């Protein structure tokens, strides 16, 4: 089965500034992709290009195999999009607005009521369906925004900072909703809240200064364990590689080694014991924190991004 979204080498320039430079994004069925980046990194521009709101300066976007530029109507049918600011009409009621959104997405007349009820139920809007959107609180407006993005049951749901302005309870509910939707649909969400990504996403892509600097699954992130080992004595690399749980090792400085291995976190005791028994003079044995936050800060702190990508 082909990917839901295949976007290759996207560029977007506004006059002199290059907002997006050679970013490629792919999305598979059942995947929740988190798009991370500091403010102004080009996340929103990327998402807007993926759903046809912005035309890319260069690049190709295939939605379910249909080219977004050649066959926009066919491609856009499969997309539900929530912009950073929900596109609401405050003078309409929730029901009226969702009917309009469903009509725009070319939902069959006979199905509109049914799908609308489902979307309302998904987003917990049952008690507010006849209220004016303008009178709803920000959190509920956000939910209406999500409801319009999922009402036509698109294959792809694109959410631009969906949890902004929500209280902690709503936050948890929306995360649950995203997880639930993620089973049947492909979801891309952008955010700069790191725990959110770790909570819901299956893959993370980081964008910094318009470039894609990191792209890994959460699974990979969790398994990526490293230890820094510093010794007093000069030990050759081969002996270090024999340590329990070590898959690969490299020397980073005099008597300092970087150990990698999937089972490394279970072998800390074994390694220290080995060092002591052989009188290697153990000075430091520290797991390197490989959280998303660390990576994010490393990548965006202005250092050479590629260098960091290799190091991580």
């Amino acid at each position, binding site marked *: 089965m082909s990917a839901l979204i295949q976007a290759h080498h996207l560029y977007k320039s506004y006059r002199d500034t290059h907002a997006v430079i050679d970013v490629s994004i792919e999305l598979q069925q059942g995947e929740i992709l988190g798009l991370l980046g500091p403010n102004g990194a080009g996340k929103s521009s990327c998402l807007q290009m993926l759903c*046809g709101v912005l035309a890319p300066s260069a690049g190709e976007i295939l939605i379910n195999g249909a080219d977004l530029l050649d066959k*926009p109507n066919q491609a856009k049918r499969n997309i539900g999009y929530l*912009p950073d600011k929900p*596109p*609401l*009409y405050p003078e309409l009621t929730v029901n009226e607005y969702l009917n*309009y*959104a469903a009509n725009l997405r070319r939902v069959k007349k006979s199905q509109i009521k049914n799908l609308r009820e489902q979307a309302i139920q998904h987003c917990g809007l049952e008690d507010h369906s006849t209220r004016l959107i303008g009178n709803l609180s920000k959190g509920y407006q956000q939910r209406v925004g999500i409801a319009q993005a999922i009402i036509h049951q698109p294959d792809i749901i694109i959410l631009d900072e969906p949890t902004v302005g929500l209280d902690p309870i709503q936050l948890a509910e929306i995360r649950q909703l995203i997880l639930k939707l993620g089973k049947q649909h492909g979801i891309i969400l952008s955010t700069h809240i790191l725990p959110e990504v770790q909570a819901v996403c299956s893959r993370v892509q980081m964008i910094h200064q318009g470039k894609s600097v990191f792209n890994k699954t959460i699974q990979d992130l969790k398994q990526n364990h490293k230890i820094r080992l510093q010794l007093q004595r000069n030990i050759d690399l081969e002996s270090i590689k024999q340590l329990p749980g070590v898959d690969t090792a490299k020397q980073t400085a005099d008597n300092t080694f970087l150990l990698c291995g999937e089972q490394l976190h279970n072998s800390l005791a074994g390694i220290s014991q080995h060092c002591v028994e052989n009188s290697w003079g153990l000075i430091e044995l520290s797991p390197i924190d490989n959280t998303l936050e660390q990576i994010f800060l490393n990548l965006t702190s202005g250092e050479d991004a590629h260098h960091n990508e290799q190091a991580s």
Partner: protein
Amino acid sequence: MILQIALRELRSLFLSPLAWIILGVIQAIMAWKFLGFIDYFFTIQADLIKIKDAPGVTDLVIAPLFDFSKVLLLIICPLITMRLLSEEKQSGSIKLLLSSPVSMTEIVLGKYLGALLFFIIVILITGIMPLSLLSSADLDMGKFASGMLGQFLTIAAFTALGLYMSAVSSQPVNAAAGTFGLLILFSIINIAGNATTEGNNFFNYISITHHSIQMLRGIVNTADIAYFILFSIGFILLSIRQLDSQRMQS
């Protein structure tokens, strides 16, 4: 799809007080003016009998009323059309339209039709007023119909221009100011046509007033109709192009 967008637009209009205020104010002013024209007709009625082929009530009441109505339409048109696209751009709700499987042409035509439907309501309720004379006077229904056609074509052209200004600007107030200025310009540009001998045909030709005035006299000319249709289509096409190019740039 065009109709869906148009009906949403119309509905939003009537959910805001603006539409009701405009309808009320227009009706009140027109009624006052209507009364004035009828009063005037009564004062000169006695003299009219002496003249052979004297102008009738259609010429002396309905034609000036419709002529005056165009001034009102010129004033209210920017108020309605300014919001069409620029408000959606400002609030970000245009992203819903742009990310939906709807072409730019459908968006623009839907918006245009929505505003036009409102103005059709306006000219219909003001058109009913002179019809009340039917009970006591002989109206020239041909002239009345051609006057209504003129009203419709004029507002169709106004709306297209307003829509384009709304597509160009990102703030409704700017769109209103631009529409207002251009509408007045197109209405008075034939003054230059009357003043100079050379090139007056051109200024007359591009003037809205020059083309609408004939219809008040009951003359329906294909050239005039073509002018209004071309004017409307031209600005609608420009709006579509404008939105498309904004999608490329912004």
